[in-house]
């Protein structure tokens, strides 16, 4: 969290947690998917489910999925824009378990059929946290270029990733490792101070034992 999360963002009202935070969750999810969203199944939990409509949470999520920022005055018209772009979506309420009250699960399919499941929470003041990707626990806020690697839980993968980053002079700000169980699926999340070159991401994808690579770039497309 930095000082401009507290004084800021400049945003379209009415709610920083239910409107701006939701735009950001949509935006980050679209970036993580890495391509235009073709279809979105959206599950609203807790306060998002209860008061989301009055705050325009639904419109805000769709606006974010369309690539809009929190201060975009077109946010109220996002449904119509999605229709024009041929993006399909539906909303449902769901109990996502013991999570933050403002939590949403997005099941996304991209234009080229790439799939991604993102669960994220809006923490207040427009700040968000991504809690899980494709069902595996993660924890990052989307403020840094973030690399997420799904791999088999076996020795060597962390070293492969970190040495690639050091080779490209990318400094790691935060790093977390998660796994479902020993020897099964694992995920590493690396929040970086610099952007990672595209070819390095592509190189990672082809390594043995790496199942999926997702990258959040902060650059505009």
């Amino acid at each position, binding site marked *: 969290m930095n*000082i401009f999360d*507290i*004084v800021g963002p400049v945003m379209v009202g009415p709610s920083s947690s239910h409107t701006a935070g939701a735009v950001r969750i949509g935006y980050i999810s679209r970036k993580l998917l890495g391509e235009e969203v073709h279809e979105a199944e959206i599950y609203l939990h807790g*306060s998002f489910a209860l008061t989301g409509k009055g705050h325009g949470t639904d419109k805000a999520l769709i606006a974010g999925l369309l690539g809009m920022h929190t201060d975009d005055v077109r946010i109220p018209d996002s449904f119509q824009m999605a229709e024009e772009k041929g993006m399909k979506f539906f909303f449902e309420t769901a109990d996502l378990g013991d999570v933050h009250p403002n939590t949403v699960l997005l099941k996304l399919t991209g234009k080229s059929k790439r799939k991604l499941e993102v669960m994220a929470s809006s923490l*207040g003041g*427009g700040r968000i946290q991504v809690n899980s990707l494709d069902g595996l626990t993660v924890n990052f806020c989307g403020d840094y270029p973030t690399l997420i690697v799904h791999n088999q839980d076996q020795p060597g993968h962390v070293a492969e990733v970190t040495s690639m980053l050091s080779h490209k002079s990318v400094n790691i700000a935060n790093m977390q490792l998660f796994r479902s169980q020993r020897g099964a699926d694992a995920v590493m999340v690396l929040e970086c101070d610099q952007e990672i070159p595209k070819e390095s991401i592509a190189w990672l994808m082809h390594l043995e034992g790496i199942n999926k690579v997702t990258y959040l770039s902060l650059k505009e497309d």
Partner: protein
Amino acid sequence: MGYISLTEIEKDIRIKKCEYWEIILQDDMKERMVSAENSLKEMQGMYQAMKQADKSYEGRRKSSSGLAGTDGLKIEKANKTGKIISGEFMGHVMERAVKMGESNACMKRIVAAPTAGSCGVIPAVLLSYEKDFKMSETRMIESLYVAAGIGCVIAKRASISGAEGGCQAEIGSASAMAAGALCYLRGGTPAQIHNASAIALKNLLGLVCDPVAGLVEVPCVKRNVIGAVNAVTASDLSMAGVKSVIPADEVIDAMKNIGRMLPCALKETAEGGLASTPTGQKIAKRLSGK
């Protein structure tokens, strides 16, 4: 931000012999790896966006629910015709707080500080102070760093979200930030600044989040007024030498505890408090039937 307590900030100001805002600026430069110029420019952008939002208030506009709007105009008129008894400056503070709250409800562009629901508190105090006391914009931007530093510590130690901590976390935090910033502008010491924040936050402890129909309109718009006015009086008390018995960091921790103890019904779910009054429910029913 690197600081997790106001005590730490106070200590660093003493050690580095810097102004309050410089300490927060330096921390931002380190954290986001930006130059002083960039950070200052961004903060100036926030201040100007507040000014812009204040100026672009539309007095005849109503929110889509019809619950919020046009009250800013009424206070403006009362101010102009000398009908406000709480003093000229306070009249301006109230007017700006309501106007900003209404703009937010009407889906206009505002600056969340710390949240959209509480977006009227800080600009109401700061924009009015700049105008009525002829301050330079440079000083105003410095005071925003002070507000941001205090707000960051509150967010770290407790919360700034109504859904998590109730309205004390939104209007209460905004009020504490504004009180500190105002003390800074009045030449207060770091201790006086934090003391003002402590007093402001203490006064709003326990405030629940109970928006009617779940919309950031009732009671939110008018709560911006109490947040702003409370900030001004807290700064007056602190500048006069009145001390908060409980130190600021501990007040923030108390706010966190209270937030935890508050039932979900009083944390933005619109299931308790004003939202569950007969009138509140009637409004909610009418809106959902639309």
